[in-house]
């Protein structure tokens, strides 16, 4: 992502081609050989299949009623603090709002969810506001005016994520307070209206950021079980246990496709194409974003339906059943793409956050921070990028393989997976080529 004034000025150097190619070929080998030979039974159960509770001390802390309120209030306080810069700060590069929104919040949500699970559910200030309003009115927050239609599924979240990535990657003047403010205000109004109509369950799959946090949090090593205990679990079990609902496929594909567009839109060939075209840049950008997401979706739907046919399962079910396997690929790609942005721009934003009104204040004591690369060299960064992409790909292949063993009859399980493996490899090679070339 490259925003006007300030945010994301530096971008990573393209990865050396040899490393990218080796990574892709390795991913291919690992997927085909290891899984085909050694993993012959579905092993990944539901989210709570094999878990090991954490120590009693931690259980005591997390089951205390204050625990949830600490995070809810923290979410509110942080949101209120960010509103200071958004509403009253000057619209200059020294304003921390754009960095806080696009880098600390959006990119930072990924490592937080990856480590601790769907954290945004507790931090979400809109959910807390709704809860507080319901408490003041002595209403049950889960009770809305209407029942949440089951067919809605993840569709509102998919639309919300698309609206966000469009803002982040295409919208004109997207780093200005006016544009960010309008977007956030519209988002808050829609989310709160949804909560009033459908009750607080609306946030579960209606809120784009909660859904994002749920998807990524599926890979977290910890889970809160239904009995309230916090337990260690296998990340793959967590991901395989992701609840299926309408719109999940599109939500996951929008995440992967938009990150790919972000890389692609930086390639000189696309820059030239946009600048030499007579069509306004935001129109071209929107078309490009939709086209890349559309291509990722078409490849996914095409291969999963082929897999379903070859594997001999009910038509039309494979896409939704396998959507969770795209999540680690998307997460790997997001980490590869935004790691240095979070590292460098994150520090810069934390320094700016001490002085949201640009008056020379140092409220948080971070104003004098100088940005440190924390020992990251260009070669090390490239290595990390290839590594996380390969890990994401391998995890995705394992998840797809395991689900295919459960979906397809044994006779056709292997042949049914061939289109899926080809899809994974294509996604990886495209991802690496984008990091390499764009």
């Amino acid at each position, binding site marked *: 992502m490259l925003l*006007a004034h300030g945010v994301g000025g530096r971008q990573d150097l393209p990865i*050396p081609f040899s*490393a990218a190619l080796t990574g892709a070929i390795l991913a291919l080998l690992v997927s085909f050989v*290891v899984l085909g030979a050694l993993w012959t039974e579905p092993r990944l159960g539901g989210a709570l299949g094999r878990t090991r509770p954490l120590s009693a001390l931690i259980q005591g802390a997390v089951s205390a009623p204050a625990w949830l309120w600490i995070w809810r209030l923290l979410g509110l306080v942080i949101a209120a603090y960010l509103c200071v810069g958004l509403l009253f700060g000057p619209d200059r590069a020294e304003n921390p709002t754009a960095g806080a929104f696009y880098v600390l919040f959006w990119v930072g949500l990924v490592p937080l969810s990856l480590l601790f699970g769907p954290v945004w559910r507790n931090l979400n200030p809109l959910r807390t506001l709704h809860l507080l309003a319901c408490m003041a009115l002595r209403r049950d927050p889960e009770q809305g005016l209407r029942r949440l239609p089951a067919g809605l599924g993840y569709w509102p979240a998919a639309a919300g994520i698309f609206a966000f990535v469009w803002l982040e990657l295409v919208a004109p003047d997207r780093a200005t307070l006016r544009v960010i403010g309008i977007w956030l205000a519209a988002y808050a109004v829609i989310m709160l209206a949804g909560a009033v109509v459908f009750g607080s369950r609306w946030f579960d799959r209606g809120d784009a950021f909660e859904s994002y946090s749920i998807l990524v949090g599926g890979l977290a090593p910890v889970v809160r079980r239904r009995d309230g205990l916090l337990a260690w679990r296998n990340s793959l079990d967590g991901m395989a246990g992701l609840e299926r609902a309408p719109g999940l496929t599109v939500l996951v594909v929008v995440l992967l496709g938009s990150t790919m567009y972000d890389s692609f839109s930086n390639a000189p060939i696309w820059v030239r194409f946009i*600048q030499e075209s007579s069509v306004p840049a935001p129109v071209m950008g929107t078309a490009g974003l939709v086209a890349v997401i559309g291509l990722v979706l078409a490849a996914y739907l095409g291969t999963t339906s082929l897999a379903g046919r070859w594997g001999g399962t009910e038509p039309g079910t494979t896409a939704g059943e396998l959507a969770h396997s795209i999540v680690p690929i998307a997460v790997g790609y997001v980490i590869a793409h935004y790691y240095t942005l979070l590292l460098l721009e994150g520090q810069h934003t934390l320094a700016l956050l001490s002085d949201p009104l640009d008056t020379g204040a140092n409220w948080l004591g971070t104003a004098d921070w100088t940005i440190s690369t924390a020992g990251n060299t260009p070669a090390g960064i490239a290595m990390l990028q290839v590594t996380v992409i390969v890990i994401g790909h391998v995890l995705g292949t394992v998840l797809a393989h395991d689900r295919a063993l459960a979906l397809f009859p044994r006779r056709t399980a292997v042949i049914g997976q061939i289109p899926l493996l080809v899809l994974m490899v294509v996604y990886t090679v495209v991802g690496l080529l984008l990091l390499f070339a764009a």
Partner: protein
Amino acid sequence: MTSPLARYRPLLAALMLGMGLLTATSACGSSSAATPVTTAVKEIAVTIAGHEVTPPPGRVEVTEGQKVRITVTSDVADVAHVHGYDKAANLRPNTPATIEFVADQSGLFEVETHESNLQLCQLMVR
């Protein structure tokens, strides 16, 4: 109860092998740790006429530590800006303006105009 790790031992072994191979191969490709001393100034000249950038935007290789001099001639008033380094120059119609700095930070940086929102080039500093 079998340890969850034991179940995935084949996968872990394969992953480790993969990572090992990857380290080995990428180590060969990136032996540019020694910084060569470059004294020549990197000259970049860009002309903007009728919303068209000449030469068309592309990538310019710069060695880390090298001095860069970007000369921009625009037919309209504007501001040219180097992202990341945050160097800017005011452009007056048909008057060349220069931005000069030492590229002391590695990465990919865009050079662009603020009013017309045109990308002039990308500096690849390594």
